[in-house]
């Protein structure tokens, strides 16, 4: 636990999980999580932008004057997002269509600017990369957790493969917007409950988890 580099990585995965703990990036987490494949794509795309912008920003951090900090960061982030957008379009139009404008909206995901501002701009590239990897992994895993529940119940499939018996009645509500709210609330409930139980038994897992 005391090793700082491990800590940089693990922090984002669990203790400061962007979606479940910090409630950052909720918009993409809910908007495209109606299937597991969309969740995975969005998670990976966001992680890539997080990683690339973190690396660049931490590398040039000593040359960027404070007054033009934000505009520089936004510029860098927007460029990487544009690249991701084109790349996804080149790989699969179908996927691009189902994610719609939400790929472009990665630019304004508070998670990315937040990490750039609070971590990458103050640390070495190596630490920034570790942090971005951890946050990206945490974000992707949370999206997958939400997306899997919604896809299994809402379509009876997971990554497009049938996982439930043929006669299963799909729960349309799960792929509707309200289903997104309910599933995220459900995960938060489970995590809260787990943390409370951990606090009561004095387990170290709960330490610092409240943010």
């Amino acid at each position, binding site marked *: 636990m005391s090793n700082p580099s491990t800590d940089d990585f693990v922090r984002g995965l669990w203790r400061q999980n962007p979606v479940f703990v910090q409630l950052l990036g909720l918009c993409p987490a809910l908007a495209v999580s109606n299937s597991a494949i969309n969740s995975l794509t969005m998670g990976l795309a966001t992680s890539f932008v997080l990683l690339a912008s973190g690396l660049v920003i931490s590398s*040039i*951090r*000593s*040359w*960027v*004057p*404070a*007054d*033009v*900090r934000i*505009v*520089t960061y936004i*510029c*860098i982030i*927007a*460029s*990487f997002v*544009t*690249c991701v957008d*084109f*790349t996804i*379009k*080149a790989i*699969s*139009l179908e996927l691009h*269509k189902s994610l719609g404008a939400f790929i472009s909206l990665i630019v304004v995901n508070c998670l990315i600017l937040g990490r750039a501002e609070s971590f990458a*701009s*103050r640390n070495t590239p190596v630490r920034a990369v570790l942090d971005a990897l951890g946050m990206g992994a945490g974000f992707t895993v949370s999206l997958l957790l939400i997306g899997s529940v919604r896809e299994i119940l*809402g379509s009876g499939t997971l990554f497009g493969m049938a996982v439930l018996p043929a006669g299963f009645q*799909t729960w*349309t509500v799960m*792929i*509707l917007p309200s289903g997104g709210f309910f599933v995220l609330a459900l995960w938060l409930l489970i995590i809260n409950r787990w943390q409370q139980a951990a606090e009561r038994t004095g387990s170290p897992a709960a330490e610092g988890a409240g943010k």
Partner: protein
Amino acid sequence: MTAASTPLAMFRTVVGVGMLCALLIVGVYEATALRIADNEARALESAVLEVLPQAKQLRSIALSAGRQIVDAEPADQPLPAFLGYDDQGDLVGAAITAAGMGYQDTIEVIYAYSFEGSKIVGMRVLQSLETPGLGTRIETDPDFTANFDALDVAVNAAGSGLRNPLTTVPQGTKTEAWQIDAITGATVSSEAVGDLLNQSAQLWVPVLVRDAIQLMRLADREEQP
């Protein structure tokens, strides 16, 4: 840690980063543009062949402001249209994309027009954001899609529009060849499809019928000056 905010440093940073970003975007754009255009063309072509399976060669067309059929690049058109020809270069039909407002967002479809008997002979939804399980039945409900296997779009005597506008009627009450049987519970989406088809057919079919003779053979086009 950060550099001092002198005007020169600020200017240098913003311009430098801006240029790097521009290079990055243009680079990736150049690298992917061809692939994307290719993907789009293939997606469109496979949709055309789905509604117009007899077609072996396609001629991409558009409607000019003076209601004339002109050649056009599909990528430049908001709603591309095609004439389909068989191996011998004989006209087998037209495939036309159409769009209109649905329940939630724009619905985009492609439909096939058959000159023989002046009918719509097939329809596929290209894009829709209708309510899952309800509005999406415009794509999946076999009873609904069967409407478009033979939908009468005969032109009126004056050649200015359809003899009978396409109308959407409640499920089970279709009596005429130009009526579309709606889906109970997804009436708005069904009507949206009916309306957008009617709008597009009113525009295209009279022109196609008028010019049918000239369009009959693919080779004819090349012989003309």
